[in-house]
């Protein structure tokens, strides 16, 4: 209970600032409309109007909540207007990319720790890869993969043969997953290199006195020791994968997913839609990271490392 008060205080402060900012940013439109209609608006009327515009500069919180409700609960989840549908498109690309990125990251880290040439050769490239703005490289990956036809998880025929139809998320998932993987492998590489090197000299010497092989040392000591580092990396990697998926949806075909919702929203001045998609993305990220944290707590406790 002691935590409730500070949390409530912060939330209240955000709400107050947000509502006030809505008034400040949207009042010009209200006064312009009144001016054109030749009517006068009182202060109260103005405030009420700024919180209920159709295309406000900054939508009020309750408008965003209402939009979230409309586009999740009131829409069929198969509808193109459902945020659940778009959320699932983004989530599937995120998860696929995350799995690949994490796998790649772990393999690279293992190579780097065991091979000096890889240590010198791979790390600079891994770092360089992250200095390229994702916004610049994402459209290129999408275009290249579209050109070579590597866009769907299974081909239309293969998917139809297997499921009777092609699930929506499979269409155009690959370029998005590649970009998600591109962003998520890096924290895993860095974290796992550190983690696999975390056993101290004494621990390594002990295994040397047993004349243990490198693979033995890896499975018995390095891998378990790296677990706390792995989970930290996974949390960052997951958030990065989601960002990658959303950014890639700005240029991917078909135009679907939370990123696409933000893009179409901005085309048509649907600020409320943009904010709803933003909140959906934030909720998704928070949920994914919370799931990893939960697994982390359980595993580390079981391993006696918490």
């Amino acid at each position, binding site marked *: 209970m002691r935590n409730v008060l500070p949390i409530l205080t912060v939330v209240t402060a955000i709400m107050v600032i947000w509502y006030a900012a809505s008034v400040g940013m949207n009042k010009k439109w209200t006064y312009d409309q009144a001016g054109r209609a030749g009517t006068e608006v009182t202060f109260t009327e103005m405030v009420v109007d700024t919180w209920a515009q159709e295309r406000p500069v900054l939508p009020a919180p309750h408008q965003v909540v209402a939009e979230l409700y409309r586009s999740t609960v009131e829409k069929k989840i198969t509808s193109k207007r459902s945020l659940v549908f778009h959320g699932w498109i983004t989530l599937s690309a995120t998860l696929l990319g995350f799995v690949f990125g994490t796998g790649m990251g772990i393999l690279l880290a293992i190579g780097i720790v065991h091979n000096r040439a890889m240590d010198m050769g791979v790390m600079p490239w891994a770092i360089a890869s992250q200095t390229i703005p994702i916004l610049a490289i994402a459209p290129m990956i999408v275009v290249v993969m579209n050109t070579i036809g590597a866009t769907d998880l299974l081909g239309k025929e293969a998917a139809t043969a297997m499921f009777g139809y092609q699930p929506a998320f499979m269409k155009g998932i690959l370029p998005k997953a590649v970009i998600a993987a591109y962003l998520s492998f890096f924290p895993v590489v860095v974290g796992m290199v550190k983690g696999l090197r975390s056993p101290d000299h*004494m621990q390594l010497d002990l295994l040397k006195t047993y004349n243990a092989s490198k693979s033995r040392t890896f499975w018995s000591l390095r891998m378990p020791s790296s677990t706390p580092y792995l989970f930290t990396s996974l949390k960052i990697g997951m958030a990065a994968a989601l960002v990658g998926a959303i950014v890639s949806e700005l240029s991917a075909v078909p135009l679907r997913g939370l990123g696409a919702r933000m893009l179409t929203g901005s085309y048509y001045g649907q600020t409320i839609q943009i904010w709803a998609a933003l909140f959906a993305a934030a909720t998704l990220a928070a949920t994914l990271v919370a799931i990893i944290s939960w697994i982390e707590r359980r595993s580390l406790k079981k391993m006696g490392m918490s």
Partner: protein
Amino acid sequence: MTQEVVIQAQNLDLTFPTNDGDVHALKDVNLDIHKGDFVSFIGPSGCGKTTFLRTIAALETPTAGTVTVNGMTADEARKSRAYGYVFQAAGLYPWRTIRGNIKLPLEIMGYSKAEQEEHVTKVLDLVDLRGFGQKFPWQLSGGMQQRASIARALAFDANILLMDEPFGALDEIVRDHLNEQLLQLWDRTNKTIAFVTHSIPEAVYLSTKIVVMSPRPGRISDVIESTLPRERPLDIRDTQEFQDIAHRVREGLRAGHAYD
């Protein structure tokens, strides 16, 4: 005595190159350790006692001279798993139970499941940790953890036990108790033990042979054959004989050691 020599060092030299020039860690070290000996290495820090132990274990390579262990080179002896090594810290894996930790070397060395269980049960008895096998390291006190790490070094059938200040991080009461237990263990298993310490009473109480070392360069300044009987209750430390040996160790330390 015509006892078999288990560890032999001849004209051993070891220098570590560092940025500030070479550090002469061991200089012209000659020593025979016989089967069943309990040998302590004592000296101030920097005298090379740990380095010497690590050289016997083939964790360091000498610059010159030879070390033979069981008639083999140190590295061959390491590969044939001739010794168990106990470090200053217990270094148990937190993700394994005590049994699991003691089983680790047995798994690596390819003992069968049945042998593993048998050996673990035997050494748990030996270090008086019966009933703690299923506990995790964090559930045990520091002294118990160190006993578990000794059990781990005893679990496989090496006839040599190398111990690098195993009780250095423990308080004196626990240390006395573990010293007593270690002597009993040595008596029962008939292993050859090489033991690094910087406590004079510990060295005198435990050893059949005390090797006094001095620093810069690390060398042996005195080797004292203990006249104490094998059977040693804790209060043997109050006898004149014990005091005499301790005195000679202290003299040896003083002689070999410039205090400036």
